[in-house]
């Protein structure tokens, strides 16, 4: 068997270590969504429970400055349900070392609630609602590139 050079092994080992340590911290955590029963008539609600790592914030859905990237939850249009409204947490106005004036952010634990109704052609039975949550986070010294979390909510369509 051909022997690998020392450089190969050093590179592989160091690259693995670098990859592991270079991962941006887990800033926003989404709790496993609970199953939602969607009635034949009327509405259901999906509440996504999220928590930000202490010391970090994300821009709210309505950032107070044009340059900031808003939090945005989008649902798959082909789902067996229709999103009536997405209700984001109210942003808090906070001043940071890098801002001249307070900006609208969310931090700590919060919920994003979506009001749903059954799509006209949906078949009864179990299904899934898929979506994407995009956010951009910072702490008081650095910012992290925008991230997108895949969201999958189990449904029971009545």
């Amino acid at each position: 068997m051909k022997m690998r050079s020392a450089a190969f092994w050093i590179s592989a080992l160091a690259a693995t270590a670098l990859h592991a340590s270079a991962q941006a911290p887990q800033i926003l955590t989404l709790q496993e969504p609970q199953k939602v029963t969607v009635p034949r008539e009327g509405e259901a609600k999906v509440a996504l429970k999220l928590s930000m790592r202490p010391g970090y914030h994300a821009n709210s859905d309505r950032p107070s400055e044009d340059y900031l990237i808003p939090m945005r939850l989008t649902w798959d249009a082909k789902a067996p349900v229709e999103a009536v409204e997405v209700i984001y947490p109210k942003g808090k106005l906070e001043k940071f070392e890098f801002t001249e004036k307070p900006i609208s952010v969310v931090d700590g634990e919060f919920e994003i609630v979506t009001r749903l109704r059954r799509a006209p052609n949906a078949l009864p039975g179990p299904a899934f609602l898929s979506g994407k949550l995009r956010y951009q986070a910072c702490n008081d010294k650095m910012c992290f590139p925008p991230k997108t979390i895949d969201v999958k909510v189990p449904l029971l369509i009545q």
Partner: protein
Amino acid sequence: MHRFPRSSAAALLAVFLMLAGCASQVSKGEPSSRRDGDAASRKAAPDFELKDMNGKTIRLSDYRGQVVLLNFWATWCGPCKIEIPWFVEFQRTYKDRGFTVIGVSVDEDGWEAVRPFLASRQVNYPVVVSTVEVEQKYGGIEALPVSFLIDREGRIASTHVGLVVKKTYEDEIRRLLD
């Protein structure tokens, strides 16, 4: 079998460990600074070739002989916006002594986002839009701002991740220019 010299292997490992050191601070969400005061221990800054707003090629190696402040930033990054006026001032003050700032935007929307930003500010140094390949050469850009101070021989003299004080940059620029 081709043997890799031990000294080269050690140098390669040192580059990775240097980047890993800064990266582990990022994973903790803390700003970090790393200085290689001893010129002999500095590592070569990876070369790149990117276009500026007017389509002109900016090649890092073309700045060999100058002190370069290579700043990775984005239009959505608040701390980056604090630093940019400092860099404009450094460019004005030290340009004639062989210094330049090069701004590297990591905006996903590229020039669509960067062009209006530059138009609204008096940025007096070259700005380019990054690629994934360039970011990987610099250890992956996991947090912003990230700046590398590069000496006249094209070697990385210091690395700063996160917002640091203006004086830190200025002291280092002066030291490298002297």
